[in-house]
């Protein structure tokens, strides 16, 4: 989108603004966008092509780099989307038409026949059990297993309703006869409806490349050549082999597994020149997980460049190598053939010095690339948006979530290949952009959640209901769940106990509520996974049934029992019983707690006035909230002041001037140039901070509801390669500045150093070495950008890029290929033998009048392709200096009580699903302060941080947690020990009454005061002495 139509977009809205948004696609991106919007006052329609939402993430076994279980971390979001009062999920549907203008669109949605009424279906599965058809291709398991004609993709599906696959259904009529819910509708037909929305977010995701098109790898012909998606299902506990690593031809456990990278990526012959961004990491993850599932496995990964450019990725690869013994071989595999007797596979490739090598494997996994979904082209036509030459939605570097049509936004892999956190970030960003557009209509179409009044439990003893989860086979396969239920029934105060296939599923929530009414339950215990992910869901469930949130206890019989005692089912069952007994003992003592309403200050403090801070500030202001924007330097812009053009050729300085102009013109934004934040007190919704000029003093004291950290990062000052000693050795950003300001013109006099047209670029200077074991992510693209610029000015220029891996991920790859085509020479140097820059003895030239003698420069590098050293005479050496975290991060982190990662960047709440949140509520993160990233990624993250912040700012009040300390005045002696121990300054001594007083709004519920109190006067509500000791007593 150009600058001009952005302005138009702002102007267009206003006539009528509809407070509803259409999200197309129900994968992790669509869900995040929907939740952010619904939680900040907008009605959301979520259209999903499949019968259930969840997308690609539902198919994954684990996610890198934390190896979190994909379904486990996603299911709370699935359930929240399914339960949210202001999200309407419309499955089995597609968008066929769009009319209107930003703020007021009419969308046509066509829903295919499902033949099952999703509102009636309970998901019991009786129909599928009896369906006489059993050989339909199970697409969810990537075709590795079959399913009946009436089916559900996966057990946690939302909506939890079956679907009849009309193509394979023989119409026997059995399912209608046996469906006790009366949900079968053979006369169901496609229907069309029109939705009135203000904005649209496209989150269609991707489709895996089909390697059947490539003859050389034998996919489809050789049974033991599988795609990475198939292998993901093989690894999954819910997959065709229940998580056992078996190969398709004979069900044997494979010993040697080959992963072939770049199948359908970085390959002009299949039309996909771009890099798919995620395959290096997912292949490494699959190798590691395979090794965990079957320790005898020997994985080998055949790759071209190791593109582990994300946060924590390089160290993951290191662990894969050193701890798991994953073998990495740099090559392009030429051919795969089969040994017919064994169905083993012979992989042929050239090694790095050009010898042809063959090696036999038991299983080959093709790391297939990401393609735009096939439906994207039709949808683009229907919506009138532009796609790029590969079929991804076209966006600008500075507008990464905006399509060519105003009011239509995009996120996730539909915009270009990307991983889950990038997708989630863009999704929040797109939600923020939509919310900004529709700010005037906020709250106009939403319904408020109303709870039934809490039941009066006075005089009623505890009546406990226990729900024990099988978690499919995750628990039930190890722990004797029926025995645990039987045992639970014998425990004091337990009046009801049952077991569930998935206690977290939507139908079970309804069931729990029914049981609460039926048996007059006053406390609920769930024995399943971990309270860290699922407690809020169950608390919500019981609250809806009239029980206070806190009358709930959980026994962790999966993560801390069945999963770790798999080989000892009897002991695991005993332990599960003990854990249930402990939870029941705790539950019996639980008391209702109050969630205090805290009024929200509707303004944001944004620390850092670079690209991230400015973008976030504009978003927050456009959503209608005040912003205090604090910038340490005298002027806005940060890192962006030193960037002049983008890889795509956009003029950065022009965009920067435009941003500053818009900040200046925004009355809701107060800019504090030359200032820093010196003190932050308070908590989500109610912060109070001091802003001071860098030199000292006090500029202002502001009150605000949220904080966005956008403090950026610095550039590493190289300490080698003669940098700082020889003026011809400069950094990439210095080169960019010379190029942009015309101080260097290739072919003419290069800088002040004499005539020259030979440039040697050295990558990874300060990155991926020593203590900084991370990739600075953008340097490869920077080098390609500047090399192309130099070549454009002087096609005769000799440019060498000395690299370790070229990491031009996504569509940046295309520019790398262009640079190669333009004659830029890329030479890979070994990690343990970096290039040497040295002056050569020779005729000395006087230069710059300073009289400093300078000989010729020479770069010596071991070319891994040639296997020998080459010496390149250089006119200029350009270093790709690392991006390094600010020293001031530590101080700010302490002030905000948020953590830093090992490298000193800020650490987000969850690497996968909460990429811009901190664990501390009300504090958000964007830009280089989080990790190295490019302009478009920074903008997306800034949009996201603003959107997340606005979910808080749009509330009138937030409900604080009920877990708080409380002082029993009668026992308190006023000694003041608790005051000293409290890190949140939540306790004060009242000298008149000589007792301690706790500010509940400040109390975080850690319990340090209760454990310190010398006279037992302090109780931590929710974790009282009695409750904890009851658990101890129940061992």
């Amino acid at each position, binding site marked *: 989108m150009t600058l001009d139509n952005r302005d138009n977009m702002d102007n267009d809205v206003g006539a009528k603004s509809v407070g509803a948004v259409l999200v197309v696609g129900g994968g992790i991106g669509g869900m995040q966008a929907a939740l952010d919007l619904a939680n900040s006052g907008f009605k959301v329609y979520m259209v999903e092509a499949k019968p259930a939402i969840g997308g690609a993430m539902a198919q994954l076994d*684990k996610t890198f780099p*934390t*190896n*979190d*279980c994909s379904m*486990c971390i996603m299911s709370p979001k699935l359930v929240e989307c399914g339960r949210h009062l202001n999200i309407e999920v419309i499955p089995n549907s597609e968008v066929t038409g769009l009319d209107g203008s930003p703020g007021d669109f009419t969308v046509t949605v066509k829903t295919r026949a499902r033949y099952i009424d999703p509102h009636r279906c309970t998901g019991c599965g009786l129909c599928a059990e009896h369906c006489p058809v059993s050989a339909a291709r199970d697409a969810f398991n990537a075709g590795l297993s079959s399913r009946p004609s009436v089916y559900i993709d996966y057990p946690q599906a939302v909506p939890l309703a079956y679907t009849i696959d009309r193509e394979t259904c023989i119409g026997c009529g059995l399912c209608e006869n046996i469906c006790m819910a009366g949900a079968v509708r053979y006369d169901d037909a496609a229907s069309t409806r029109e939705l009135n929305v203000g904005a649209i977010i496209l989150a269609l995701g991707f489709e895996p490349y089909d390697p059947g098109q490539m003859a050389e790898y034998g996919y489809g012909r050789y049974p033991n050549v599988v795609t990475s998606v198939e292998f993901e299902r093989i690894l999954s506990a819910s997959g065709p082999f229940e998580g056992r690593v078996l190969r398709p031809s004979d069900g044997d456990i494979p010993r040697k597994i080959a992963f072939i990278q770049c199948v359908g990526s970085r390959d002009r012959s299949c039309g996909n020149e771009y890099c798919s961004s995620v395959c290096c990491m997912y292949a490494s993850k699959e190798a590691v997980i395979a090794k*965990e599932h079957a320790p005898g496995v020997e994985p080998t990964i055949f790759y071209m460049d190791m593109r582990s450019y994300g946060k924590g990725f390089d160290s993951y690869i290191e662990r894969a190598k050193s701890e798991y013994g994953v073998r990495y071989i740099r090559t392009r595999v030429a051919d795969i053939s089969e040994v017919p007797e064994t169905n083993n596979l012979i992989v042929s490739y050239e090694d790095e010095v050009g010898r042809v090598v063959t090696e036999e494997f038991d299983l080959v996994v093709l790391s297939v690339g990401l393609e735009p979904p096939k439906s994207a082209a039709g949808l683009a036509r229907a919506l009138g948006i532009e796609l790029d030459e590969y079929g991804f939605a076209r966006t600008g570097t500075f507008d990464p979530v905006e399509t060519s049509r105003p009011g239509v936004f995009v996120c996730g892999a539909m915009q270009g290949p990307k991983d889950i956190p990038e997708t989630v970030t863009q999704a929040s960003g797109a939600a923020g952009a939509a919310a900004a557009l529709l700010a005037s209509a906020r709250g106009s179409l939403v319904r408020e959640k109303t709870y039934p009044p809490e039941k009066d439990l006075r005089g009623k003893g505890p009546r406990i209901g226990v729900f024990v989860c099988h978690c499919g086979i995750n628990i039930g396969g190890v722990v004797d769940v029926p025995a645990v239920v039987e045992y639970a029934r014998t425990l004091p105060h337990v009046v009801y106990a049952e077991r569930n296939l998935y206690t977290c599923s939507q139908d079970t929530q309804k069931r729990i509520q029914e049981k609460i009414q039926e048996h007059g339950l006053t406390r609920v215990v769930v024995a399943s996974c*971990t*309270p*860290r992910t699922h407690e809020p869901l169950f608390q919500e469930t019981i609250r809806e049934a009239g029980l206070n949130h806190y009358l709930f206890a959980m026994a*962790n019989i*999966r*993560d*801390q*029992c069945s*999963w*770790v*005692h*798999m*080989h*000892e089912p009897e*002991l*695991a069952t*005993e*332990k599960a019983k*003990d*854990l249930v007994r*402990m939870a029941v003992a705790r539950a019996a003592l639980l008391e209702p707690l109050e969630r205090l309403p805290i009024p929200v200050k509707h303004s944001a403090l944004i620390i850092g006035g670079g690209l991230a801070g400015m973008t976030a500030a504009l978003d927050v202001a456009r959503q209608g909230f005040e912003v205090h924007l604090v910038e340490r330097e005298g002027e806005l812009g940060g890192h962006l002041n030193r960037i002049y053009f983008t890889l795509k050729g956009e003029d950065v300085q022009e965009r920067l001037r435009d941003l500053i102009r818009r900040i200046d013109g925004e009355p809701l934004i107060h800019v504090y140039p030359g200032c820093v934040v010196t003190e932050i007190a308070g908590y989500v919704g109610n912060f109070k901070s001091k802003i001071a000029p860098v030199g000292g003093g006090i500029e202002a004291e502001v009150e605000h509801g949220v904080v966005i950290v956008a403090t950026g990062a610095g550039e590493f000052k190289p300490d080698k390669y003669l940098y700082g000693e020889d003026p011809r050795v400069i950094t990439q950003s210095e080169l960019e500045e010379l190029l942009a300001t015309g101080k260097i013109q290739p072919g003419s006099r290069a800088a002040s150093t004499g005539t020259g047209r030979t440039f040697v670029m050295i990558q990874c200077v300060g990155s991926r070495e020593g203590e900084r074991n991370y990739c600075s992510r953008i340097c490869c693209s920077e080098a390609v950008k500047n090399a192309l610029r130099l070549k454009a000015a002087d096609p005769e220029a000799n440019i060498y890029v000395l690299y370790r891996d070229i990491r031009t991920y996504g569509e940046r790859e295309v520019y790398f290929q262009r640079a190669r085509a333009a004659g830029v020479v890329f030479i890979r140097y070994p990690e343990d033998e970096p290039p040497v820059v040295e002056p050569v003895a020779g005729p000395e030239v006087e230069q710059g009048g300073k009289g400093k003698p300078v000989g010729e420069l020479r770069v010596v590098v071991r070319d891994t392709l040639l296997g020998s050293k080459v010496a390149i005479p250089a006119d200029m050496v350009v270093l790709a200096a690392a991006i390094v975290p600010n020293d001031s991060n530590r101080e700010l982190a302490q002030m905000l*009580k948020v*953590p830093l990662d090992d490298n000193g960047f800020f650490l987000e709440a969850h690497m996968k699903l909460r990429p811009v949140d901190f*664990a501390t509520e009300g504090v958000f993160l964007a830009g280089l302060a989080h990790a190295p990233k490019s302009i478009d990624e920074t903008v997306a993250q800034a949009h996201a941080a603003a959107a997340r912040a606005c979910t808080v700012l749009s509330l009138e009040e937030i409900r604080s947690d009920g*877990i708080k300390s409380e002082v029993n005045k009668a026992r308190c002696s006023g*000694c003041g*020990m608790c005051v*000293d*121990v409290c*890190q*949140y300054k939540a306790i004060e001594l009242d000298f008149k009454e000589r007792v301690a007083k706790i500010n509940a709004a400040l109390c*975080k*519920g*850690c*319990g*340090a005061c*209760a*454990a*310190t*109190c*010398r*006279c*037992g006067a302090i109780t*931590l509500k929710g*974790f009282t*002495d009695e409750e*904890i*000791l009851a*658990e*101890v*007593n129940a*061992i």
Partner: protein
Amino acid sequence: MESETFEPKIVAFLCNWCSYAGADLAGTSRLYYPANVRAIRVMCSGRVDPAMMIRPFIDGADGVLVLGCHFGDCHYLTGNYQTDQRVRIVWEVLRQVGVDPGRLHLDWVSAAEGARFAEIVEEFCNRMRHMGPLQASLPSGPLPYDLPLALAIAAEIVEGERFRWLLGRLRELREQGSVYGERIDAARLEQLVRDVIAEEYVRAGVQVLAAREPLSVKDMASKLGLAARDVLKQVAYLKKRGVLDIYDVRQQSPRYQSTTRIGVDDLG
């Protein structure tokens, strides 16, 4: 001893943010560890009161694990420093009453350290197997061994106000000095802690015994493994405070009994 087949009972206090998450990660990573551990989730290891470290032993546990965040990682900033302080002083109490302090183990596990969690549990469990059941353990203190009595006294000590005041102040005293701004020698501080615990031991012992049945000073001294002279000092003190009263006099020896059956809690 039947340490070959003995399976200890272990209670583990895990903080919500680090070690509990680490334990979950051990699960998601399917890392095996012995099934002897029963975890109790608290929001912060700093919540674990000294009394909660003693109580599992009374309730039948053979070992207690307290696992918090690594230093610098505490979700509540300094909770784990307090935990560190507390566990160290509870070790002294256990030593005083003759229970091997090795049965209470303190360690740090981050949310990302599933493997470390499994290792710590495995190692501790092996150590407990080796040590054998707490009930059958040999005394390591001055006491003619009566385990329930020892544990009851330990529980009484850690509930005592003097003990808790000192514990609450220790870190500040060590790091910032006294109210006079004086630095206190670390060795002196350690000696102070030992002295207080030793004295509290006598006082708590007297109270626990006197709450059970009327006893003479000599009886108490022999049960506690102490000199009658030392016991008498505390008996006299407690009598003055109205905590003890003379029950009767038998063969020249007055027998004392608690005025309340609660004990130290109601002192002062």
